[in-house]
């Protein structure tokens, strides 16, 4: 029998014995899918951890290795040169670049939160014709590539655009090397996302609370900032953090709207490039600067996460 049809005979009779460890694992996973899900979860987690954390590790490896030894790098640093974190501030006033980045980020965030709060109130709490189309318009604008605006905005902010009204010609102000040509485009670019976040949050605050505030003596605007915004704290924090990080990470406008000097409001990106001299490229200093530059945002996210997770609205109303 077995000679005539060996394949079927083996498979049918000796199934348990012929399976290896993988076969047994597959068998239990089919019977108990939770195991499969759990292992998939671990695989995905390890993948994301490695892909997000490895670059930081690599920066650390580069920073700790003296610059003259940076070639044919392995996974371990060739040396342990901690003075690089002091040298990076001596070679370039990196703290000023960081200060500039903070000023740009905070100004933009404040501006965005202010405008997005007003917009979010209107979209989230009022009913008017054309609301859907306006929302769609904001969504559409948020998908415009920022690079498309670069040249016209550069012309505008460097004072090269002039409008003639009759005999009077008004030329645009020269704002190059000031925060304005960065803050305004940033605000415009990052507004739509904040508007969407705040619209959802403000829309969920019960009407009764706003009415109560208005009867108690606030205007609509007062009710927005005294009641609706504090109660939407997680949403406002989310919008603010996302905006701040986006500005902190931004490249195009940050790079092109100033001459790259710390005194010209150039942010971190210019600072890192500033290390590159005519005759050398100190990779270790650049790596160290990158790590220092990332730290504030990492800390901000860790702190803000607590804030975002902790809901403030518990027990808001007896519904």
């Amino acid at each position, binding site marked *: 029998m077995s000679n005539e049809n060996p394949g079927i005979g083996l498979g049918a009779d000796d199934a348990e014995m012929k399976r290896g460890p993988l076969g047994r694992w597959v068998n239990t996973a089919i019977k108990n899918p939770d195991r499969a899900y759990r292992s998939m979860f671990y695989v995905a987690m390890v993948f994301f951890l490695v892909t997000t954390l490895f670059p930081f590790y690599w920066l650390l490896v580069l920073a700790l290795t003296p610059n003259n030894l940076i070639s044919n790098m392995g996974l371990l640093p060739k040396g342990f040169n901690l003075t690089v974190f002091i040298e990076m501030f001596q070679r370039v006033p990196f703290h000023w670049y960081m200060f500039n980045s903070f000023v740009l980020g905070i100004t933009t965030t404040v501006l965005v939160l202010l405008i997005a709060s007003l917009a979010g109130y209107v979209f989230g709490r009022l009913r008017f014709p054309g609301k859907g189309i306006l929302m769609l318009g904001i969504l559409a604008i948020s998908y415009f590539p920022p690079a498309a605006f670069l040249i016209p905005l550069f012309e505008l902010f460097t004072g090269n655009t002039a409008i003639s009204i009759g005999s009077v010609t008004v030329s645009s102000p020269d704002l190059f090397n000031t925060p304005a040509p960065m803050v305004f485009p940033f605000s415009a670019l990052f507004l739509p996302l904040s508007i969407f976040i705040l619209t959802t949050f403000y829309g969920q605050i019960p009407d009764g609370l706003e009415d109560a505030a208005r009867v108690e*003596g606030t205007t609509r605007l007062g009710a927005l900032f005294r009641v609706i915004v504090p109660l939407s704290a997680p949403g406002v924090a989310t919008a603010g953090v996302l905006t701040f990080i986006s500005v902190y990470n931004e490249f195009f406008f940050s790079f092109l709207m100033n001459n790259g000097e710390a005194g010209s409001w150039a942010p971190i990106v210019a600072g890192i490039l500033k290390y590159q001299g005519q005759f050398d490229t100190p990779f270790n200093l650049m790596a160290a600067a990158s790590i220092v530059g990332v730290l504030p945002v990492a800390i901000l996210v860790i702190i803000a996460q607590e804030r975002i997770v902790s809901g403030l609205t518990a027990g808001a109303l007896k519904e």
Partner: protein
Amino acid sequence: MGDVKLEHVSKHYGDVTAVDDMNLEIQDGEFICLVGPSGCGKSTTMEMIAGLTIPSEGEVFIGDREVTNLPPKDRGVAMVFQNIALFPHMNVYDNISFGLRLRNYDKEEIQRRVERAADVVQLEGMLERMPDEMSGGQRQRVAIARAIVRNPGVFLMDEPLANLDAKLRVHMRTELQRLHKELDTTIIYVTHDQAEAMTMSDRIAVIDSGRLQQIDPPLVCYNEPANLFVAGFIGSPSMNFLDGEVTDYGFESTYINVEFDPAEIGVEVGTDVTMGIRPEDVYLIEDERQVANPSHQIDAMTDVLEPMGDEIFVYLKLSEEAHADLEDATGVINDQLLMSVSPDTDVEEDEDVTVILDRTRVHLFDTETGKALSHGIESMVQASGAPGTEAESDD
């Protein structure tokens, strides 16, 4: 001061009319209940007094000021909301003092006023708590304290007790009455619960589908309802209604006839009328001596009994096919009658009984327009004049 006047006020939302030509005059210090079924426009009316909604037409006056388009903060009103609406991010002290702080009172004055308000609603020692640490009744009291702390001319209360449990609701009802006595300000109170309206108010304004149906003291609304709607809405359980016609001999319907002289109460022969009689004005034949002016005897069969403790509701079938279904508040069901008898009465289900009506308590309404024609057939000499004209003026 605290008198409120609405003149020809209407509110339209697109094609929907929420409030239709409302005229109201509320005296200073009065406790008025706006009562009506859900969606009748009573809350919209209140919002227009508060300024949260701007009327489409008409004018609103508070005191001697025209306030139709003023924002709520400038109207000198305070409001207690159905969902209580305490600011969840502030403690009790901050909640109560919210309005005062906005008006830049000094710290000592705020402190003094908050403590007095907390004293009135018995909230001493809880000023540091957050709203989510308090019970429903306590929160409601904070909301009331927040309203009274500013000494407003007018109090608006939008179903403030709707979310409390039954026992607390009865308790808060008496507290509100005490508060009204103490403060002596105008209170406008919205509710869909006619029992609340009956027990608390000086006058009840009954509203249906955006129109004012009747505004009168509670007992007048109960005893002399201006129309079918008011008759059916005020009183629980609701009034019995039977459709019939006026003949030379009085009211005639399929099962029940009530004798009277049509000329004497000013009803034309041949008019389609609806007769209304409250359950407590239907008596068993054994209790005939309690009725000064009984009607004909009516044969009926008991259907379902609802013993309430202090009384028994008896559903009576006037014909074999009748079903016990009196859910519809204003529904006219011609072959059934609801009777309330004292708890020691000896009745059983599915028993043949004979009942009589108290003729002085029979109401007649025009079936077509719903207007009241007469309240009490024997006492019509006194009754027909006053309520008849009132019904006219209110519509």
